[in-house]
């Protein structure tokens, strides 16, 4: 049985922890709103970009001469995985969910005899993947010092990926990030960005074939557009990730605050009980002392 003093100390410490988690929750909630807005505002750009590319690919008559970024190298050997995580912890399962998904995929690639290369973005992902897959990590980025991630950072990573692709360092590129659905649901996702995935149904293709006028030629536009699209996809992943991180942190901290409250209640009951017990004990001692006189 802990002494009264011990209980008092514990209650105090739990209460101060609760204060911290509460503050973190509040901060996350405020940031979440901004991040969510950003993510939602960023969506049209990437969607429209995809649309244009789709329209372009449809009008390419000669698929053999199409840019490699679109069709791939024709091989299926080396996989480049870009894992996007946060730089900060204390956000529930956010980072480990991405890493879990990434690890499952890594295992799949390795067991089918593919070669694996990893780029991590964000320090938390690096920490989790380092031990098991450290030898595959070829590059790591961290934007810890940058408050608001902008298009420039996405460009940096995009350029790196494109450079590697031009040097024929990999055949397929897959992006891992959390897709922000709502505050409590974030879905870890693996998205293939090279070669570009054509996941629209056939019927939609049919109706969209309006004959576009291209200036300059289709392939020239594509060559300009595809690298941009990669950067755009990465930027989109960034935005989704940022919103997910805050959402995840908010729920995690909300839970922590509630748990701390429960703990305080329990400890207070314990404290009161043992206080009462000690008072009763003292009273008995006094009474029995008086009786014996």
């Amino acid at each position, binding site marked *: 049985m802990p002494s009264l003093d011990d209980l008092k100390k514990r209650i105090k410490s739990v209460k101060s922890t609760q204060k911290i988690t509460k503050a973190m929750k509040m901060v996350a909630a405020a940031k979440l709103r901004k991040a969510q807005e*950003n993510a939602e*505002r*960023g969506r*049209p*750009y*990437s969607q*429209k*970009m995809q*649309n*244009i590319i789709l*329209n*372009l690919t449809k009008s390419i008559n000669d698929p053999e001469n199409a840019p490699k970024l679109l069709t791939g190298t024709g091989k299926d050997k080396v996989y480049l995985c870009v894992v996007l995580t946060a730089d900060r912890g204390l956000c529930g399962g956010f980072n480990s969910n991405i890493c879990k998904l990434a690890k499952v995929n890594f295992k799949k690639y390795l067991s089918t005899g593919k070669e694996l290369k990893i780029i991590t973005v964000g320090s938390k992902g690096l920490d989790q993947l380092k031990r098991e897959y450290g030898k595959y990590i070829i590059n790591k980025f961290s934007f810890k010092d940058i408050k608001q991630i*902008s*298009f420039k950072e*996405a460009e940096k990573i995009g350029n790196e990926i494109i450079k590697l692709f031009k040097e024929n360092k990999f055949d397929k590129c897959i992006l891992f990030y959390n897709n922000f659905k709502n505050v409590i649901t974030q879905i870890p996702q693996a998205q293939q960005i090279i070669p570009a995935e054509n996941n629209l149904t056939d019927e939609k293709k049919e109706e969209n074939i*309006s*004959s*576009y*006028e*291209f*200036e*300059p030629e289709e392939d020239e*536009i594509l060559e*300009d*557009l595809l690298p*941009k699209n990669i950067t*755009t996809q990465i*930027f*989109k992943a960034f*935005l989704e990730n940022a919103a997910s991180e805050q959402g995840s942190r908010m729920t995690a901290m909300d839970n922590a605050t509630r748990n701390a409250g429960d703990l305080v209640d329990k400890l207070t009951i314990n404290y009161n009980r043992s206080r009462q017990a000690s008072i009763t004990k003292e009273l008995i001692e006094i009474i029995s002392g008086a009786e014996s006189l």
Partner: protein
Amino acid sequence: MSEKFTVEIISPSRLILKADSSEVTIPAYEGQMGILKDHVPLITFLRPGLILIKSEDEKIFFVEDGTVEFNNNVLLILTSTAKTLNELNKVEIDEMIRRSNELLENDKVTDKEKYLLHYKIRTLQEINI
């Protein structure tokens, strides 16, 4: 008025402009291009230059690059570099011109990049006056 169509300028982080316009001039890669209502569907990309949007009042944007799609009387401009002229001050413009000139003298720059830089400098000098 029925002679209008929709213009949208979208950057990766936000919708910059959504408006109705009767005529838009864009600096397409192969030359200035004027777009009116019921233009044929079109996809092209931009070189550095000015986008002029005519409606009740004229809006001007400076862009460095971007992609343009016109379909069903919606003109879509995707760019990460659109700026209104008010957002640019003289110091910034001078700095951009200086940097572009530096790049031009670099031997590694390809012809295509030179072409784009050339236009960038010219446009910047134009708005600098």
